[in-house]
């Protein structure tokens, strides 16, 4: 393997780094133990924080106290929001941080919705086939519904709206 460095000079004196001055999390460049004074490089300047818990190499440590809903900033950009109160020095990961994107309507991830998925697939495919074939797509979609019912052994409402399906799910639970 090509080594990217000659004999190493003195290792720099910081253990974590943040890439933008606005960041409220830093990346641990080496494993951090609880109660450690961690020097964080912010490019031009550095700050020292006390870790509240162990933080593995590459994982994130909070640089500020955060409340639920607060944006987490890394690279100067939003990487998601806090789902709990996060104290300065705490480990930040999926237990207290969640994405703001690709969220399921209504919050939690729903079960795979074969009906919605096939409709989306059919509409996507319809974009790339001639108009004359639209009827064929519609016919095939009907057959896919039938097949799904047979194979998966459950009813797929043909034209149910989202709220109808939610109501039915509620009844089943």
């Amino acid at each position, binding site marked *: 393997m*090509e080594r990217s460095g000659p004999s190493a000079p003195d290792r720099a004196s910081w253990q974590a780094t943040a890439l933008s001055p606005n960041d409220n999390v830093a990346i641990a460049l080496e494993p951090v133990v609880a109660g450690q004074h961690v020097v964080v490089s912010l490019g031009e300047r550095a700050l020292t924080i006390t870790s509240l818990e162990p933080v593995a190499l590459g994982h994130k440590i909070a640089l500020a106290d955060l409340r639920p809903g607060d944006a987490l900033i890394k690279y100067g950009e939003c990487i998601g929001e806090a789902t709990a109160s996060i104290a300065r020095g705490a480990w930040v990961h999926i237990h207290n941080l969640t994405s703001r994107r690709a969220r399921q309507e209504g919050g939690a991830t729903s079960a795979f919705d074969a009906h919605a998925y096939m409709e989306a697939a059919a509409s996507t495919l319809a974009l790339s086939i001639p108009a004359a074939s639209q009827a064929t797509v519609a016919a095939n979609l009907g057959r896919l519904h039938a097949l799904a019912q047979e194979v998966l052994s459950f009813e797929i409402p043909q034209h149910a709206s989202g709220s109808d399906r939610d109501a039915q799910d509620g009844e089943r639970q």
Partner: protein
Amino acid sequence: MSAHFDGFRRADGSVGVRNHVLVLSVNGLTSPTARRIGRAVPGARVVATPFGSGLFGEDAALQRRALTGFGRHPNVAAALVIGGTAPYVREIADAIAVGGKPVEALVLDDCEHDAITVTERGTRIAARMLRDASRARRTRVDLGELCVGVECGRSDPSSGLVANPLAGSIVDALLAAGGRAVFGETIEWLGAEHLLERRAVDPGVARAIRNAVQRRERASVVAGMDLLGNNPGPTNIAAGLSTIEEKSLGAIAKGGHAPIRGVVAVAEPLPGPGLYLMDAPAYAPESVGGLVASGAQLVLFTTGVGNSFVSGIAPTIKICANPVAAGRLREQLDFDASAVFERTIPLREATAQLQDVLLDVASGTLTWGEVLDEGDDVVSRLGPAL
């Protein structure tokens, strides 16, 4: 640092960094035969699709485009195209031969539907092609003749911090020399698309970027899928990546800083010099397959915890800045950037070293993936088949 490498100038003016003979099976029926020919002629590379006549719409177009792209690839000196029926096999063989490349076609229908006959004829053709190809010699060419695909796989926080910015610096240098670069993995623009849109050369390109991200985001929502656990996947999460936004913001650094000239479809040839985005799946085999089919002669592939996947057609340079992975994967990683992560050398010093490695590999030095024959080249599937 030298800004030249030694490559194979092709009849159509393009430059190969390898001199492969390709056995290309364009139908699933003939793919086992293609692999058998590959075993009989060990110097030949095999690309074989499992699919066939049931494809329609965008899937059919993508298969044609990608299989043709593999055949036309500058790293391919000559191609043997095999398949089930004449019109499709001839169409792809003719498209590959347009620039003057030696191409031969074998059709199951013309061989009494006998795989052994195809094997016998194909073995003789591939053997002759390989001997003829070996007469080609490398000549000195400019760095700017390169088209590089950029990929990240099994990323971790060291990817976004070091390995991707390092690959991005190489892309910047390559584009400044007049070259081409492309990266895909659309779902890993999600959360960073505003930064990519700002770099678009015109509003149409910015809109194409936004639309591409929205389509993937909508697909994941409609499929009832939580991206957490899928992308970022369990390996990414264990290593410290938490959300798709965090992963994306690190991932786009591999594309450097240049203006984005357009968004191409999977396996679509790049229209000209400069940086392009490919609207494509993120999973490495599909993503790399699309980049290579579009004409990338080399792939810069960054990883955090390690990823062994490489293209068989385009040498794939593995770059890693995670000190633990770099210590472990000595026969997988072609460039160890962990000294940057460990703060012992600056990024610009590693950039100069990586450019030397790139030119060295372009001139013929084998990557670990080539030494270990890890290469594979596949085409994505999009929807149902008839």
